[in-house]
């Protein structure tokens, strides 16, 4: 039993990692008042290009770099649509997700019509003999660098102040000499990179291969987490862990205990149900960023 529990803990951290990367990416973007529904597609594209380049070059590092670039490009595309052109954020985000997923599936089928290629060389776990701490370096970075770093930047740097101001009241930000659009562009580019890293983690570190349903709604989970966390960093991390623990635990518990009767799907639906319940309970008390879903246009 204790071995199962440790294995579950280790699995939990691994499962949570892509959610932390992409969730924080989405958090940064939403902090500037943009809802990026391109997240699902961006994670997918990150997973795919990371895998493709790693496969072709033989190095997961090149794959990671490619994923990051893909994420930046996807973020900038979202920025052109929703910031410069001022299109509806949800329509442009969903359009981007559909386009990216279709594009990646297209390329994957074109290149590997029948086969199931596998990476020769993927990222190895660190501390491979230590239970629980046996994790990929991207997991360590997510929990020990990305989360505290984002928290610190948002809290006590000029950049954080700018992001906060743009997201809450973009007129005030503009009057204070902060470029609303530049801030949103930057947030979308960086956030896109983090989302793509979250996706690439699955192909480059966990699986070593690419499957067509690899993201499978993880992007939507992140959207849920960010709202559940009320746009704060640590609750996003906590939410990712809670989601991961239910996922990891039920794998363990399914073998042994009474939980085996609970369908896996119920567990998987938990984050969504939790967020909708939380929204219903918090109701009007949820404080969305003031410029949420609004395009900024100068007179």
């Amino acid at each position: 039993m204790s071995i199962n529990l440790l294995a579950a803990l280790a699995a939990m951290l691994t499962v949570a990692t892509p959610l932390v990367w992409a969730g924080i990416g989405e958090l940064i973007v939403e902090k500037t008042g943009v809802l990026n529904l391109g997240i699902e597609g961006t994670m997918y594209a990150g997973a795919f290009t990371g895998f493709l380049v790693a496969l072709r070059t033989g190095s997961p590092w090149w794959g990671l770099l490619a994923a990051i670039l893909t994420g930046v490009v996807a973020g900038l595309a979202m920025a052109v649509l929703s910031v410069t052109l001022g299109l509806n954020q949800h329509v442009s985000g969903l359009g981007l997700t559909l386009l990216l997923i279709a594009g990646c599936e297209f390329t994957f089928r074109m290149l590997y019509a029948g086969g199931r290629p596998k990476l020769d060389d993927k990222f190895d776990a660190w501390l491979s003999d230590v239970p629980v701490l046996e994790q990929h370096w991207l997991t360590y970075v997510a929990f020990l660098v990305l989360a505290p770093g984002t928290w610190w930047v948002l809290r006590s740097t000029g950049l954080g102040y700018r992001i906060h101001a743009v997201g809450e009241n973009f007129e005030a930000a503009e009057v204070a000499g902060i470029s609303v659009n530049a801030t949103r562009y930057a947030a979308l580019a960086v956030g896109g990179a983090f989302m793509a890293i979250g996706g690439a983690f699955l192909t480059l570190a966990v699986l070593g291969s690419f499957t067509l349903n690899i993201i499978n709604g993880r992007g939507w989970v992140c959207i849920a987490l960010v709202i559940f966390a009320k746009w704060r960093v640590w609750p996003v991390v906590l939410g990712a862990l809670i989601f991961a623990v239910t996922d990891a635990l039920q794998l363990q518990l399914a073998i042994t205990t009474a939980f085996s009767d609970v369908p896996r799907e119920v567990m998987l639906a938990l984050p969504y149900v939790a967020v909708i319940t939380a929204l219903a309970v918090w109701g009007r008390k949820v404080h969305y960023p003031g410029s949420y879903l609004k395009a900024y246009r100068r007179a």
Partner: protein
Amino acid sequence: MMRLVLRGSEPRWVAPVAVLVAVLATVVLTAIPIRIAGANPPAAFERYLVQPLSSPQGIYEVLLSATPLLFTGIAVAIAFRAGYWNIGAEGQFLMGAVLTTWLALTLPDLPAVAALPFGLVAGAVGGAGWALLPAWLKRHGRIDEVVTTLLLNPVALLVVQGLLNGPWRNTASGFTDSDRFGTGYDLPEIVPGTRVHWGFAVALLIIALTWFVLSRTAVGLHVRATGAAPDAAAFSGVPVDRLRFRAALVSGGIAGLGGASQVMGVQHQLTQGISNNYGYTGIIVATLGGLTALGVVLVAGLLGDITVGAESVSLVLQVPTQLGDMFGALLMLTVLSALSWRRYRVQWRPPRRAAEDSEREEVGHR
């Protein structure tokens, strides 16, 4: 040097030209992957767009492919028209299919005369039921519907998967498909010998009804007012919240009807892939169709055409079918972009002044 300035007024030719430019851009952009896939773009486009329409059999297939998109497209259009951002047509479509399946599995031997109407009604109830919670939260809690409707989509998919993995697993094959429905639930073909079923006619009927209500009745004017300027509509006594709530339920109901039409008319059983992203594509259909009834019909037809064409291109020219999906999404993004640019015109300025201004074009102008 040139820069963009706001137009005083918009000439009539601008919007069509913008759309044309967007279509051309989409064609050029999709020609690249076709080329990379080793096919000849003109030949491929001929197969995507023209060939499906060149034979009666092809046209029937196009209508069949367009049917679910007609449902989800008009469903999304109705909600968007009322200013309710229903992103959840995907989940509502699935739950429509689920409730219809439940009925068909519970009462398998129902004769067609009862099974057909009850099956469709079950679908509508399933879709409307799935739309109820976000609509209720929006009306009574002012909770943004974009996120709630979106997040219920994966939940609906999990419901489908849970049911198919558990209680509804196929009793004969053990696969994760439901049992085949009783034949009473089969929507008959409109033209014998083809696969086009009466779901298509139901979709057209609903779209015609929508057009009529929106353009010819007081409720329709109220809905348009609500979507265009909710505060002003409320000022004029339009019951904005109630209208939106009802539009949300109607939207969900129609999407659910689409799910019922798909299980009863095409698959005759519930499958995991019952919704081939139809709900999300419905957003493309509605948006590209300008949220109008006729626009929805045209765009759903176009995407149906491309879907059928994509099958043949994939078989003959080895270009994966996903190009059809890429085309739809790309077309929406380029058309929206082009239309948003049309408020500006290009102005030529003397180089000296222009150099000072080049750094910040007045793109931000409304």
